[in-house]
């Protein structure tokens, strides 16, 4: 039987979290000492029958009370600030990360790489590269947890969430679902493989010949009939989608929103919630007709045409 004491440290955030953890342990030991050493001493010295000065105290307690209020308060605020700073960095993904899509469902993780590779309960990533996961759930809340990276994010149905990390060590690490999700919650586990870049490329190439995520999206775009209105001559009725991704979109309500993953998701599932300025609310909802994985493919396609010019409608 092994006696592990400390988890593997395999990402940049792991180092940050661990230094905070050790400071917290230090502060805890300090408080335990200033509480328990006097307590044990008093229990011994003032035990009934043992001779000791027990004259009533005639001192003002205010100064003592203020001291032991202010010192913990200052330490607590310091901890808050450090923890919040590290959290902020862990929550906001850096630009130029490797995008990977994750779908959680009872009880498995389905992963799609932009290159088209798909995996279940396994994730292969290159060493040293910043990876950004965009995640969605088909049913209940799950949570994508990699202890060795010290990262965790609940995957909440009905929205996209993101998680990022930068692996610093080659190896195989646990992936756990950390949010209780029903009968086989404890089987919703997997492995993260951190590989040297060359090995990662070789792994990616094993899937060569398949459609990339954007190509699958393009096929769906035609099959679902999106292309009838959103591309080419149809765009009298609906906004063209070339060059859309990442741009600002004026809405009927005079709001202006950015066309990001969330906007495209909402436009497909809840088309009447945000109507682009100058168009009628004609689009039917695709809620229930399209899976989370297909949504990711469509978004990949719309992203892939972000630099194209729309064809002018005749």
């Amino acid at each position: 039987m092994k006696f592990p004491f400390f988890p593997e440290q395999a990402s940049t955030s792991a180092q940050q979290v661990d230094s905070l953890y050790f400071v917290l342990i230090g502060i805890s030991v300090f408080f335990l000492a200033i509480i328990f050493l006097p307590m044990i001493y008093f229990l011994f010295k003032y035990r009934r029958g043992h001779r000791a000065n027990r004259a009533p105290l005639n001192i003002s307690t205010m100064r003592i009370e203020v001291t032991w209020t202010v010192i913990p308060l200052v330490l607590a605020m310091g901890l808050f600030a450090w923890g919040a700073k590290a959290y902020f960095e862990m929550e906001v993904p850096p630009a130029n990360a490797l995008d990977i899509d994750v779908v959680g469902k009872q009880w498995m993780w389905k992963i799609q790489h932009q290159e088209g590779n798909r995996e279940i309960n396994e994730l292969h990533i290159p060493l040293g590269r910043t990876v950004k996961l965009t995640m969605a759930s088909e049913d209940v809340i799950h949570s994508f947890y990699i202890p060795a990276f010290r990262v965790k994010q609940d995957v909440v149905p009905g929205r996209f969430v993101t998680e990022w990390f930068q692996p610093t060590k080659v190896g195989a690490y646990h992936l756990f679902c950390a949010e209780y999700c029903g009968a086989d919650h404890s089987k919703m586990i997997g492995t993260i493989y951190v590989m040297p870049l060359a090995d990662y490329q070789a792994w990616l190439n094993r899937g060569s010949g398949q459609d990339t995520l954007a190509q699958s999206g393009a096929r769906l775009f035609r099959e679902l009939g999106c292309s009838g209105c959103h591309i080419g001559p149809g765009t009298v009725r609906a906004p063209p989608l070339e060059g859309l991704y990442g741009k600002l979109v004026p809405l009927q309500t005079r709001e202006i929103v950015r066309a990001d993953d969330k906007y495209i998701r909402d436009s497909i599932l809840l088309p009447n919630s945000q109507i682009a300025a100058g168009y009628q609310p004609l689009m039917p909802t695709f809620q229930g007709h399209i899976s989370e994985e297909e949504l990711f493919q469509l978004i990949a396609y719309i992203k892939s045409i972000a630099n194209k010019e729309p064809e002018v409608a005749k």
Partner: protein
Amino acid sequence: MKELATTLERETPALIGSDENYLSAGHTLKSWLLTTDHKRIGLLYLFSISFFFVIAATAAALMRAELVTPQGDLVTSETYNKLFTIHGVLMVWFFLIPSIPSVLGNFIIPMMIGARDVAFPRLNLLSWYLFIGGGLFALYAIVAGGVDTGWTFYAPLSSVYSNTHVVEMATGIFITGFSSILTGLNFIITIQKMRAPGLTWFRLPLFIWSMFATSLILVLATPVLAITLALMVLERVWGIGIFDPKLGGDPILFQHLFWFYSHPAVYIMILPGMGVISELISCFSRKKIFGYKFVAFSSMAIAVLGFLVWGHHMFVSSQSIYAGMIFSILSFLVAIPSAIKVFNWVATLYRGSISLDTPMLYALGFIGLFTIGGLTGLFLATLAVDVHVTDTYFVVAHFHYIMVGGMVSAFMGGLHYWWPKITGRLYPEKLGQLAAIIMFFGFNLTFFPQFILGYLGMPRRYHAYPPEFQIYQVLSTAGASILAIAYLLPVIYLIWSLKHGKKAGANPWQATGLEWKTSSPPPKHNFDEMPIVTEEAYEYPPLSDEGRELEVSKDA
């Protein structure tokens, strides 16, 4: 009829020292089931919560047995999930929340403030019946096949996906919630309006302050739980979209509502314990509590701040990171009043005359375990660390240090302290001390390994787990078996003491406080004469250098 009977009794008060007391006032089942005596109602709660504790503890024992091996080989994963749901639901709503308030609070509050009963005795009985009614629904849900959502009932798992008896269980908790609300209401009014002449707010024992703070939370927070569960049932039964995004709802809304109740509920489960500890520390070191007003106001501060920290359960839920920062700083702030209490308790020992009777051992155990529970709370309030340890065994260990290490220690301490008052008999002291010590070590062996397990990354609510975690699970199960002995021992000797314990007399601990000024067991209406209070709480006589009291206590 009832009024007439009360008037007659008032005219012919029982004499101190006569055999007539609240226990001998009636022996029929009816005299218990229709009683409006706060002391008997307290005992009805004691029996009922002990019953629920046994079921919930059995569920825990089965889980601990399952976790000895990494494979899920003792029960199926469905059964395991039902076990931790039963354990959580029963322990939280049917044991911890009513433990000190409904048992010790009911029994002691009116006597501590010199009242004949609570403000609304019949409402008090209704509270117990609601509790039992809710309990029956919960038991039905268990017997009919169980519930597998966890005590947190997160949607949309509970509201759409689970195929178990969620509605029955939620109904049970819903009904029991009204019992909490009525008890809280009763206590607030009792404490406000029924204090004996001279018993001003700053002469109140600190137990009363903590129960007052607890009652405010019971009344203000519990309705939100009722709303949350009702909305969840609406979605489950009629498909009204509130939480499930497929029906147009928002699952995060459920968490906000649930924790808006359930975080304050954590303080329902610890504030009464803190009140008991203040009584015990003062009595067994024969000293006035150090910093009375700071301890009193810290209870109120905890009650108020406790309402503003619920979002710290949701740091990885995809709520706004700025909201996360606000909830984090408020969570650090709520730690301060708890720290103030601990420092004041330790300072009370200074120049005291300390005896390590059973209640004091529990009180010292409480300080130790509660401090560890509180300090590990700082880890969880620290945003970046919480991301790693939330939903792991670290959290499980943390809240068990507060709930079991803290609240159950305080409950046991209080039960032993007031046992002579409740029964008129002394429990066997040596056995009591032994059980308290076993409990402390058993508890630490059970739950300390779980901190390490959590930081290693083992998620909670896992039926099977990777083999490298096994050693800590085995240690934890070993500790749980020791803990089981520590719980069994008091059951045996306390029952034994009912017949064979030494007669206690009115005030076996030579304690201050009005509850000790009447006979043990107390007469039905507590006091034969209205007590008049002329001094602050915990006015123990000055001590000699050997720790003897220099003037004879007035009650001796």
